[in-house]
């Protein structure tokens, strides 16, 4: 909705047609003899060597999974093995021209992609560079292990051994793996060679890779990104979101800064083996007939889509060469439909019930390991005996590596008994990195010249004057200002910081938190995303993986479901799955709505708090909001930052002196004692704090009870010290939030308090939540969300009967049981 782009009826309503260009299908038809003019013979032979290394790796795993022995090495491996036997030539062809600066992301079936890219990088790097990389990786521990396997003929051979051993011991869950075995087969990678993670969720890499491309584009980093996903993933919404996200018009129309205009440097490569597990894509589960067609549905340039024969490595190299030219010109993203075929099952338990043996045999007859070799021999590149030597060498190398990777003495497992905190230590990085950038942050004007900043400077930084009289709302520094303030500061501190989401720019975010930022930030740092929650969060994950900081927004907490995988599986898990190699400085802002009915009013904090690996907070006052946002912005961990639409305009009512103008941090896990009292502890989460305050006022005025109110501004992590101290004092606890009571995070807190303070409790901890219904229309808010009277009722009925009080809302036990039984 930028005003600069005119959307007029005359143009839009004019008659015309849409033109499509032809999409090439297997255009490459050159012979090896012809290509000898373009390739050195040794390169053509090395391509073959790489194919054999990949094939042997997968054959080894097949043997181990099915027979528990490979070439005399006896071992077992219980984990996943989604093998790519048959797909190796396509991987080697793809990687051939890629450099370590070019990033590759993969799928659950990516062993061959990882190894091909690594072998290609080894070929391109000097001995010195290779030694430096190997020496520098995990303090050289992996290199030390590889050196112990015996002498090698060259540094490159040492590096080949290094990459095979690091990958295999990672798959075998050994401490010597590239990330201590915490990722395994479906989450392996090696950043120094540009090998970024593969992903166990089908299509999961698409939004992440788009975010990596965004990082390269925004931060002027060299190289491009290849997103390897399978044809089965074209049925996944997030993949389509990623294709569109990476191809948005605004890169050409609105990103008008120097060097920022143009398409995303990303190649979406679909390794099309014809099956999504057992479902045949063409003919059964998909509609595209030929996968390459889909590029025409995304952009006018049809994403330069084409189908390439992945059984011919030279055809893939040819296509890659042309695609790289397009990306360099800023005309990405591009799409390749790289045909291939999987000889093996989806996994070792696959009975191949969905295809005929004869079909597999027909493909095996044109197996590149046979046909490419024959073509090389026929063209006179080398004698056939040369390839026998290569095969023998490959097998010998693999056997040596397998023997060492399987040996628990040589390649030990992490010792969970001796070091029970091994995984615990990986869950959060807990670092303070004020800036990930080295460049001068790109801004359009000085911060002091931002009208919003000037407006805030004139505001009162607390809610009440000395006499307790409320300042005018317009003149009060409020909750949305409190989120804005550390954010704009960070934009001037960290050049990598980007913020995006739906309507965050011209609108200033649906709730005006970002109002004023467009005045000082270019589009490349603050932009409107499509309505693609999966792409919003997934791309932020990719952006952070590459070394940038991202603040993204989902507008309503109710939209978390649209980004479920990206929040619950990607954002939360990569730090630990990478054994701490990756950092995840992503802040996901989500706003808990009100007045907008059942799909726009839900507090889903419990869903996020349940998932290991996420920090979760929900500030309820401006002081909390600023301090937590500052803390999140300085940190290196993924944060789901809940906000409440009920309180964007409130000023600071509790913190002594109001909200400081200078920067400060609130430590995640701390709790905010907003009022002290001796008779009952009220623990609050979110905007329910303000209703708890009303309840506390009434308790004091009418019944002489002094309530202590503790607001949980962060849920994960959570320091129980102040809570325990309070409970020891009062012995009585009621917990209040707007989340539906069943499964509310507060139940967890209540259970922990009962555990930690049982002997101090004078009554059970009582959780007061919203009813287990849909949120009814706003007119009925008082029947659904906790009210001050519900809190007092709960205290009276369940904790300490108040003389003279008559409860109206707390259900009897019979009624409670009925509701439980009915599920409402």
């Amino acid at each position: 909705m930028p005003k600069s782009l005119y959307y007029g009826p005359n143009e839009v309503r004019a008659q015309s047609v849409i033109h499509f260009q032809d999409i090439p299908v297997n255009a490459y038809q050159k012979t090896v003899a012809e290509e000898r003019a373009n390739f050195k013979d040794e390169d053509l032979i090395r391509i073959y060597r790489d194919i054999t290394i990949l094939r042997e790796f997968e054959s080894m795993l097949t043997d181990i999974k099915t027979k528990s022995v490979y070439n005399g090495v006896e071992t077992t491996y219980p984990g996943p093995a989604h093998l790519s036997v048959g797909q190796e030539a396509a991987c080697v062809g793809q990687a051939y021209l890629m450099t370590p600066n070019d990033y590759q992301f993969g799928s659950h079936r990516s062993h061959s992609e990882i190894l091909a890219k690594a072998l290609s990088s080894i070929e391109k790097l000097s001995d010195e560079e290779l030694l430096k990389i190997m020496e520098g990786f995990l303090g050289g521990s992996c290199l030390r292990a590889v050196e112990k396997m015996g002498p090698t003929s060259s540094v490159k051979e040492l590096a080949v051994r290094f990459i095979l051993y690091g990958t295999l011991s990672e798959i075998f869950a050994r401490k010597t793996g590239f990330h201590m075995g915490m990722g395994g087969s479906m989450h392996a990678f090696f950043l120094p060679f540009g090998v970024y993670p593969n992903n166990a969720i089908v299509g999961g890499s698409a939004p992440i890779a788009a975010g990596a491309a965004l990082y390269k584009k925004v931060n002027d980093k060299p190289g491009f990104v290849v997103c390897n996903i399978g044809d089965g993933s074209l049925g996944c919404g997030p993949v389509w979101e990623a294709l569109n996200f990476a191809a948005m018009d605004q890169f050409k129309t609105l990103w008008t800064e120097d060097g920022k205009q143009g398409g995303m440097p990303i190649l979406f490569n679909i390794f099309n083996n014809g099956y999504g597990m057992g479902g045949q894509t063409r003919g059964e589960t998909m509609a595209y007939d030929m996968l390459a067609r889909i590029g025409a549905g995304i952009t006018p340039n049809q994403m330069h889509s084409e189908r390439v024969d992945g059984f011919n490595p030279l055809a893939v190299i040819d296509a890659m060469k042309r695609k790289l030219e397009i990306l360099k010109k800023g005309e990405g993203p591009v799409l390749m439909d790289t045909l291939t075929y999987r000889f093996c099952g989806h996994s070792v338990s696959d009975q191949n019930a969905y295809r005929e043996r004869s079909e597999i045999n027909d493909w095996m007859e044109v197996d590149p390991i046979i046909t490419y070799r024959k073509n090389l021999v026929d063209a006179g590149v080398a004698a056939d005996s040369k390839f026998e030597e290569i095969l023998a060498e490959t097998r010998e190398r693999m056997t040596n590596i397998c023997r060492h990777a399987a040996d628990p003495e040589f390649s030990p497992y992490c010792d969970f008994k001796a070091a029970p905190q091994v995984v615990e230590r990986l869950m959060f990085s807990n670092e303070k990195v004020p800036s990930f950038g080295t460049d001068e942050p790109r801004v359009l004007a000085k911060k002091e010249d931002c009208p919003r900043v000037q407006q805030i400077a004139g505001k009162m930084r607390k809610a009440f004057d000395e006499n307790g009289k409320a300042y005018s709302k317009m003149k009060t520094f409020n909750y949305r200002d409190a989120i804005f303030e550390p954010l704009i500061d960070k934009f001037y501190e960290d050049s990598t910081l980007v913020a995006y989401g739906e309507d965050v720019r011209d609108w200033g975010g649906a709730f005006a938190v970002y109002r004023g930022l467009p005045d000082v930030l270019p589009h490349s740092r603050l932009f409107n995303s499509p309505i693609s929650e999966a792409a919003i969060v997934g791309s932020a994950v990719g952006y952070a993986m590459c070394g940038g900081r991202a603040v993204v927004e989902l507008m309503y907490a109710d939209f978390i479901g649209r980004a479920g995988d990206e929040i619950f599986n990607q954002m939360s898990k990569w730090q630990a799955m990478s054994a701490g190699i990756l950092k995840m400085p992503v802040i996901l802002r989500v706003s808990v709505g009100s007045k907008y009915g059942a799909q726009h009013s839900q507090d889903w904090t419990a869903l996020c708090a349940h998932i290991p690996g996420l920090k979760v907070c929900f500030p309820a006052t401006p002081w909390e909001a600023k301090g937590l946002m500052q803390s999140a912005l300085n940190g290196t961990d993924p944060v789901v930052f809940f906000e409440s639409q009920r309180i964007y305009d409130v000023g600071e009512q509790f913190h002594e002196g109001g909200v400081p103008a200078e920067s400060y941090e609130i430590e995640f896990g701390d709790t905010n004692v907003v009022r002290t009292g001796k008779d009952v502890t009220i623990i609050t989460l979110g905007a329910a704090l303000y209703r708890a305050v009303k309840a506390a006022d009434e308790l004091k005025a009418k019944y002489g009870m002094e309530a202590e109110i503790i607001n949980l501004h962060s849920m994960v992590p959570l320091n129980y010290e102040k809570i325990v101290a309070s409970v020891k004092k009062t012995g009585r606890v009621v917990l209040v939030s707007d989340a539906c009571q069943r499964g509310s995070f507060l139940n967890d807190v209540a259970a922990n308090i009962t555990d930690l303070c049982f002997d101090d409790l004078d009554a059970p901890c009582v959780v007061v939540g919203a009813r287990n219904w849909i949120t009814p229309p706003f007119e009925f808010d008082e029947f659904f969300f906790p009210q001050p009277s519900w809190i007092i009722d709960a205290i009276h009925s369940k904790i300490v009967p108040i003389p003279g009080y008559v409860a109206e809302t707390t259900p009897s036990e019979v009624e409670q049981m009925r509701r439980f039984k009915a599920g409402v």
Partner: protein
Amino acid sequence: MAKAVIMPKAGITVESCIIGKWLKNVGDTVNVGDILFTYETDKASFECESTEAGEVLALFFNDGDEVPCFTNVCAIGNKGEDYSDLVPGGAAAAPGEEKKEEVKEEAKEEKKAEAAIEKTVSTDGELRISPRAKALAENAGVDPKYAEATGPKGRIIERDVRKLMENGMPVIEEAKAEAAPAAAPAKAAPAPEFEDVKFSGIRKVIAKSMMNSLQSMAQLTNHHSFDATSIQAFRKELKAAGGEVGGITLGDMVLYAVSRTLLNWKDLNANVIGDDTIRYFKHVNLGVAVDTPRGLMVPTIFNADEKSLLEISKEVKSLAEAARSGAISPDLLSGGSFTVSNLGATGVEMFTPVINPPQTAILGVCGITQRVREANGQLSVYPAMGLSLTYDHRVVDGSPASKFVSELCKNLEKFTLLLAK
């Protein structure tokens, strides 16, 4: 400075004791070693000697009060000395006599106390109390069962215990007795035709144990009898011999025979632990039921199988004496593997003794009756002594139980032979 006397701990497992009767009153002068009051545990009663000398300044509890061990029970010092810091729970208002005076003055207060005590006699005997209130009561040394429950569902909560601590433990019996004359003229209520007496500690335990026994086990009883000619003759001989052996009774002989027979029947010399475990004993720890003024008590003769008839006889006598006087250590009142209950002297012909949990059986010893038997066409009269074995059918079947008693009868009929073994 005034000193406190504490409630002693009368055994490893004893947590609290009930004051039986105060023998000294406020104002009395006492010396170290004087008996201040009697107290009883679940299983025995004792006398508490004063550990201080001086004037009794205050009694913090009354007859019948249950007092946690090591809690201050009274203050002793020089006349007029301050003892407020000795009051259990660090009370602001010292109870004891001051309380009594209040009660005298204020009939209303007395009524309140009465109401509290009425709540105390709770209907189901279960105490609903919050963990916090419970912990507070324990720390303060007050008995929460005297608290008036004001929490949800009749639960005693913190404020109830605090109120109890403020008001002090009710001193109800005296309070009632002393307050009664004041109220009597107005109401002129007729004296009741009955007397309510609360179960003593031991009675409570017996009641609980017996009910538990019958509710939790599958008990049945076999009745046998044997020819007591042999043991009667032996008894005569011993009596004639006089001295220590002259005191050996028929009951002692039964105990001896049981101690020598039981090890062949391990299921009967056992305890049931939980619902599914049986503990077999390597020795016979023989419980002997003793009638005492406070009720039934069962002291244990440990390792009876290794003791001579005389040793058993002497030990039974000393244990019974200790039990009757209430001076027996609680630790001697448990640990039995089998019990013998002898009602023979009272003329019982047969009865169904109730097993003493967690044991698996109990032998009842009955009186001797003259019976007629036929042998070779001749009728003859002989003294028959009855034995009634109650056993837990969960553990022991009828056949082995009967065989045990048969063997026991055989051994008793040829008692001197058994002695020779």
